[in-house]
């Protein structure tokens, strides 16, 4: 079956690199490619400022081909510039499959490539498989994650898929690499002569707001039912005791209790897979559950005995969220 037209012969990953730091999602996507199409030639693209260390790590990551568009002009995301650089790499490599991490930037790059290459894009895949006939199939959520649908991109190339960080798991094996490719530079000179109508003028960093929920083994989550003013400070205390992190639901963010919305969990926020998730005053709405359903153990507290979250929990208690939270933080104090 060497001529199977469905077969992925070349896969390309847009490396998610933030200020020179290779993000975990890159390893997640690389691991997935090696799983579903181990024989494919695997390429990566780096687009950003000049960070030789990041470039070197990517070169040794286990990819067969590495494209790099390195220029101070690309340090801050500019849709027009970054799209042009990615387009150039795709034209050269001609992949059958293109994987992009669904960051704010990736979500803008992927659909752009869809139109430029006249092909389909599957958004926010929760899984990527090869079906019995050898055809790649993307599983994508709809209706806030309540429904999952299969997406095929049978006739056009590359098939494009975006995946949120934390959806796939990364294996360390991909990093054991014998031969490292030479870097194929993408010409950034073309950017200098382009007077686009968008000009970045700065970055406003959001308040740091505690540890990120992405990598935490314990996530304690504040919902709208955690109404006490000091409750979020108690959540921080509890999380800190276990070196965990604090997450929250959308209504909690809107009530202004957490400092920022970086650790919002759910459809419009992050997808987390901690060993333990504890929800305080969380109802269990689809949009939120979509982001925590794969947690190892789920514990929940709600004062409504019929709360939907109970059916999705391993352990639960009916009661006042603040009171139980306070009793838990009391235990952490010597």
């Amino acid at each position, binding site marked *: 079956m060497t001529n199977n037209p469905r077969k992925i012969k070349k896969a390309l990953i847009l490396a998610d690199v933030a200020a020179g730091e290779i993000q975990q999602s890159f390893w997640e996507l690389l691991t997935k490619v090696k799983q579903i199409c181990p024989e494919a030639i695997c390429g990566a693209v780096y687009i950003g400022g000049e960070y030789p260390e990041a470039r070197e790590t990517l070169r040794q990551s286990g990819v067969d081909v590495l494209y790099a568009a390195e220029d101070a002009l690309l340090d801050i995301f500019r849709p027009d510039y970054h799209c042009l650089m990615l387009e150039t790499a795709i034209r050269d490599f001609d992949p059958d499959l293109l994987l992009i991490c669904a960051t704010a930037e990736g979500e803008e790059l992927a659909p752009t490539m869809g139109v430029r290459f006249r092909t389909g894009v599957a958004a926010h895949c929760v899984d990527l498989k090869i079906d019995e006939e050898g055809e790649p*199939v993307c599983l994508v959520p709809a209706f806030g994650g309540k429904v999952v649908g299969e*997406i095929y991109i049978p006739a056009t190339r590359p098939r494009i898929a975006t995946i949120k960080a934390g959806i796939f798991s990364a294996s360390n094996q991909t990093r054991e690499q014998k031969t490292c490719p030479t870097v194929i530079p993408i010409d950034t000179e073309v950017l200098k002569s382009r007077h686009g109508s968008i000009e970045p003028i700065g970055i*406003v960093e959001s308040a740091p707001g505690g540890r990120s929920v992405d990598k935490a083994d314990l996530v304690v989550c504040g919902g709208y039912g955690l109404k006490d003013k000091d409750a979020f400070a108690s959540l921080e205390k509890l999380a800190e005791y276990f070196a965990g992190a604090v997450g929250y639901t959308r209504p909690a963010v809107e009530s202004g209790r957490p400092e920022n919305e970086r650790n919002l969990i759910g459809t419009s926020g992050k997808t987390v897979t901690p060993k333990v998730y504890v929800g305080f005053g969380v109802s269990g709405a689809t949009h939120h559950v979509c982001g925590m359903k794969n947690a190892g153990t789920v514990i929940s507290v709600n004062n409504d005995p019929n709360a939907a979250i109970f*059916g999705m929990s391993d352990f639960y208690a009916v009661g006042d969220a603040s009171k139980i939270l306070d009793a838990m933080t009391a*235990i952490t104090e010597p």
Partner: protein
Amino acid sequence: MQILVCVKPVPDPEKYDLLMIDPETRRLIREGIPTVINPADKNALEAALRIKDTTEASITVLSMAPDFCADRIRECLAMGADEAYLLSDIRFGGADTYATSRTLMKGIETIGLAPDLILAGNESADGATAHVPVQLAEWLGLPHIANVSSIERDTRAGQAPGAASWIIHKKAEQGHIRYRARPPILLSVERNSNRPRIVSALGVVKSKKKKLEILRFDALDVSSDTVGYAGSPTKAGALSIPDLSRTGQRVAGTPAEIAAAFMDIIKKSI
């Protein structure tokens, strides 16, 4: 200034917990779920209305949706938009983001619009891909910025009114990126980035006199293989509702007892 706002009627996202799949047809049952304007699209419309509050501007609303959604589109006119076009035809059905954005582009061509600003909600509540606005810009050959949380006029001195630029905030991973952007441009507006105004009784009365035109397949310069399901590079397979149930074990007692039990479970599991 001409502003185009793209909107999509969607099943009310507050009610997605009620969705079911028909065990026989494997189709989605949406019964009992009303249709509303996609939440983020209302933020886009509000952003346009705020510009119109302070400047000479006309706002056109464009949507691709079935006829029964006309009432929802009229709601946008009641909020303050000036005119609306609904692209509605059975042949547009089953479109993915690629075919949808292309049909919208053809609609803009047919109407003969050359907007200075195109605003759309960043993502729809149902599909939530965030593709359509960006892809529409690509078809039109316009620059785009997605995840926009604020749009302000650039107040630097000496700007000619016609060439006025905008200061745009884009939500990014670590905060916000600020851009200076010149029209024409498309901006995808974040949900909750402003508070959409409430429709007034007067607004409703006025909306009845405003233009709401339905454009069919024949009005657009399209062929049947470029619209709807046929024109979509992505093809949908089976649908399923993931089973998220766990064997919930209730822990009872005083808050202190419950707390002790939970602390134990956490310690054992991490």
